[in-house]
């Protein structure tokens, strides 16, 4: 018999990995955010709160708000598109399910950057869409499909949709179909049965998927970089710039910490709202 103590050893490799490569750098970032930047970008070991004070600048406030708006919208659109897809897959025969799940995951096999540039080829002025529309005579001028917030949203939803579909699919798969039959039996129309039984019973999948998509989109910088152009910078791009171009690591660290706290707060609020909705659903 394995004792609990020995079972704990099984978690050790993962814990060491996360400890060395995640917790430690995170603590370093937290420490950095309270230090000063020297004239040539070097770190001056002198405590300060200036980095945090700088964030209060409305410039950054606006970018934070933009980022939040894009992330919330991305999450919402992914949910609205992802749930029906997951539902559809879960109702298929086993073999068909495998094929559909494979299709959902195939984009992961291709490098993220490559996929983003593929979108550029499709959407740019001389891109696939515009060329086809022009040759059909439907438009005279190329449509501005790229380098705006719409294209950023498109890219984000495209990239993150699988993170929504998979957890919802799993929770739909785990749901006992007899519960749905019981709802029909008690007079619930298919729509009411979905609303009162299926959706509450798959809430865990919706919550997990939403958090995965939201957290991924709030720190996203590749998609806005490639598909958004200069005007659509999100907070992820600002942080990236602080570290790579501006060489202001302390300020970049402060932005990262604020971003992290903000997403933790939002996730906490989301959990609370989801639980309250569950309780209300039960009482309704």
């Amino acid at each position: 018999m394995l004792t609990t103590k020995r079972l704990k050893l099984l978690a050790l490799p993962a814990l060491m990995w996360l400890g060395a490569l995640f917790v430690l750098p995170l603590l370093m970032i937290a420490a950095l955010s309270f230090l000063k930047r020297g004239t040539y970008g070097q770190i001056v070991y002198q405590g300060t709160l200036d980095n945090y004070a700088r964030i209060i600048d409305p410039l950054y406030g606006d970018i934070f708000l933009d980022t939040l708006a894009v992330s919330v919208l991305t999450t919402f659109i992914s949910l609205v598109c992802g749930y029906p897809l997951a539902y559809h897959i879960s109702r298929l025969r086993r073999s068909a399910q495998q094929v559909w799940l494979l299709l959902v995951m195939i984009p992961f096999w291709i490098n993220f950057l490559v996929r983003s540039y593929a979108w550029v080829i499709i959407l740019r002025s001389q891109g696939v869409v515009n060329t086809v529309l022009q040759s059909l005579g439907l438009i005279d001028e190329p449509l501005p499909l790229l380098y705006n917030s719409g294209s950023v949203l498109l890219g984000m939803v495209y990239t993150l949709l699988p993170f929504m579909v998979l957890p919802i699919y799993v929770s739909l798969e785990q749901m006992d179909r007899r519960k749905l039959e019981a709802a029909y039996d008690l007079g619930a129309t298919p729509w009411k049965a979905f609303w009162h039984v299926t959706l509450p019973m798959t809430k865990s999948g919706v919550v997990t998927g939403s958090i995965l998509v939201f957290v991924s989109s709030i720190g996203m910088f590749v998609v806005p970089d490639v598909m958004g152009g200069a005007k659509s910078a999100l907070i992820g791009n600002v942080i990236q710039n602080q570290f790579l171009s501006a060489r202001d690591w302390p300020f970049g660290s402060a932005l990262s910490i604020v971003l992290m706290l903000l997403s933790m707060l939002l996730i906490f609020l989301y959990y609370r709202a989801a639980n309250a909705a569950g309780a209300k659903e039960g009482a309704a």
Partner: protein
Amino acid sequence: MKTIIALESIEKHFSGSVVIPPLSLSIAEGEFLTLLGPSGCGKTTLLRMIAGFEEPTAGEIFLDGKPLTNVPPYRRDMNMVFQQYALFPHMTVEENILFGLKMKKVPAAEQQRRLEEVLQYTHLAELRKRTPKQLSGGQQQRVAIARAIVNNPKVLLLDEPLGALDYQLRKSLQLELKNLQKNLGITFVYVTHDQEEAMAMSDRIAVMNKGRIEQIASPAEIYNHPRTLFVATFIGENNIFRSGDASIAVRPEKIRLYPLEVEPDKHRMTGQITDMVFLGNLRKLYIRLYDEDMTVLAHEYAGDSRGWRAGDQVAIGWAPEDEVTLRC
């Protein structure tokens, strides 16, 4: 008696194979009808077709004279008690019970009145705020029944509702269910593979085998006058004697044993007792026949024991009225 449910030439095929060949059945209002058979005999499929979860490949089902073919399950005036209860885990007992009334938009005051009534009736009043996870199997079963009967359905369909419970609980709930059915006057269509359960509760039993109804009759009729070999062997214990094309069934309690020297017109066969099993109120005697390759089972009740012992040679007989000729 008024017919509440009529099945007319119902058929069901699953991907090409016939699960239920054409079958007709009529169920009287207020009766307790049990569909009894081994697993895979089509009894649950039949019940699910009545409920509307499966569509018959051919034929028509009538509820109170109206055809049900195009009526979805949520518009059929009947309710089902599911095998594993299928309670809603995210709702309390109370919310589970109210679900049907809410879906049908019953006025709030009426909902409350019926809820209180059914909570009293099923002894669930104190558990009303619990969720299904916090209940025992027997309590969950009560909730499943309460959730169904609160809707005052014309017909209650029950799919092995006691299957998941232990023996003692099953025994006491059998009686409760029977009383419930009598008091409410609702028609019960009950599916089980447990013949004892079927015997204890039903007004009529439909014994099913390979999608067909082999016999439909009262429990006593089924027991005393089985029509087919399947019914004779599936319900209770039986001795089957074959003579030519015909088969004759004689229940073990009807078998009489005599000493060998008793005059031959009283007995028909001779043999030797090979095994005896003591069961308290009775003893089972297994007798190996001399002239045929077969073992006969006889019951000997406490009180009229002849003191037979294993190894004794006996003659076997039965009264002519105790034998049943079977169709094959």
